[in-house]
């Protein structure tokens, strides 16, 4: 069997163009989940496909299009639960769910804004300055896993955020990665658990259970699934200071 047959290289381009179907499509999906070579090529092809519309002669949308989108967005949010269900819910829960939905939407939009800014900026101090603007940025260094790194982006509310990591090895089902906030003279608390993809990367929504400035260390350990009440593994990623 040739390498061409082992790696579905001939089909990667068609797949990323959405032109592959049936068993060949399934084969590509399952193959790239475990093959870093093909996954890397696929990512580059995605870049090509992403660039194709940039070659079109630009046509501005109708002037009233944005107003219609804004009005429809306002109409659709917050999403209401089913009326019958509302009657059975206590008052505090009826108040809570719209708030949760609004918060989730807020986090989504915040994330998109952050990504927009990070995408168009070069790496370096400027990126970190931008990343701090919506909230705070904690840079995690690979202490127990030297090849790994992470960024914890804490939203301006101080209670929620996103965690991005790279370089951690994929774990079996019975193990998980867990984020910790270590406080002096107080119990260590967790911000959540997460898995990484086949390329060792993760992007997870997390909670920040204590004010960030109360923590002395932010760390990530490997724990038995579904997570531990206190860290049992050594620190794989760690941050001791942030601004």
């Amino acid at each position, binding site marked *: 069997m040739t390498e061409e047959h082992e790696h579905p290289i001939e089909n990667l381009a*068609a797949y990323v163009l959405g032109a592959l179907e049936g068993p060949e499509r399934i084969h590509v999906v399952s193959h790239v989940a475990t093959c870093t070579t093909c996954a890397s090529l696929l990512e580059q092809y995605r870049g090509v496909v992403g660039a194709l519309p940039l*070659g079109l002669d630009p046509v501005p949308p109708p002037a009233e*299009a*944005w107003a219609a*989108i804004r009005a429809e967005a306002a109409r659709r*949010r917050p999403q209401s639960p089913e009326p019958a269900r509302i009657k059975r819910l206590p008052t505090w829960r009826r108040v809570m769910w719209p708030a949760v939905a609004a918060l989730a939407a807020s986090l989504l939009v915040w994330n998109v804004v952050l*990504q927009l800014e990070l995408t168009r900026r070069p790496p370096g101090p400027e990126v970190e300055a931008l990343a701090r603007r919506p909230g705070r940025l904690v840079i995690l260094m690979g202490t127990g896993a030297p090849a790994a790194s992470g960024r914890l982006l804490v939203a301006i509310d101080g209670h929620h955020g996103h965690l991005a990591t790279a370089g951690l090895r994929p774990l079996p089902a019975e193990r998980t990665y867990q984020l910790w906030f270590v406080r002096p003279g107080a119990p260590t608390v967790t911000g959540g658990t997460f898995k990484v993809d086949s*390329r060792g990367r993760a992007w997870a929504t997390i909670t920040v259970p204590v004010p960030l400035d109360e923590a002395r260390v932010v760390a990530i350990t490997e724990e038995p699934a579904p997570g531990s009440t206190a860290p049992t593994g050594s620190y794989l990623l760690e941050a001791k200071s942030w601004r």
Partner: protein
Amino acid sequence: MQRGEEAALELLYARYGGLVFTLALRIVGDPELAREVLQDTFLRCWEGSESFDPGRGRVPWWLMGIARNRAIDLLRSRPHQARLREGEQLAVGIGEPTQPDATDSFPTRHAVVSALQGLPIAQRQAIELAYYRGLTQTEIAHELDTPLGTIKSRTREAMDRLRTLLWPLIEPQQEIGRP
């Protein structure tokens, strides 16, 4: 609605709305349908029904993917097919002056156009039929009356050539959390 959220959506729209509309119009060929695609794309982002995965590319690639899928769905829908069969003249182009944004710089457009024009016609045709008309490899082979293996080779060769020519635009970024 909180002001910050609306401002974020507006920022996203201001930056990419023109590109989404342009792509949609190229695919569906009808300004009204393109506007529908434009609205659907941003509302899906707003509602969170399409979540952004940084591991699968940059924000504009994500948005273009949503827009393209929606446009192809419309293109394949029965009413649209009926309109095409009836030979209705679809208006393409509105004639308003272009408002430049960061994704619409002339050098970028020139680079992409040059790269596409540098492809052999048969390769460019394979790419455009797949991307803008949403045809599968089998459908392209049928439409062009060409063996499927030839279409696969053309597609791959075209994508490899574009990957080389457009590398400065698509080069993966190393900063974590960045697509």
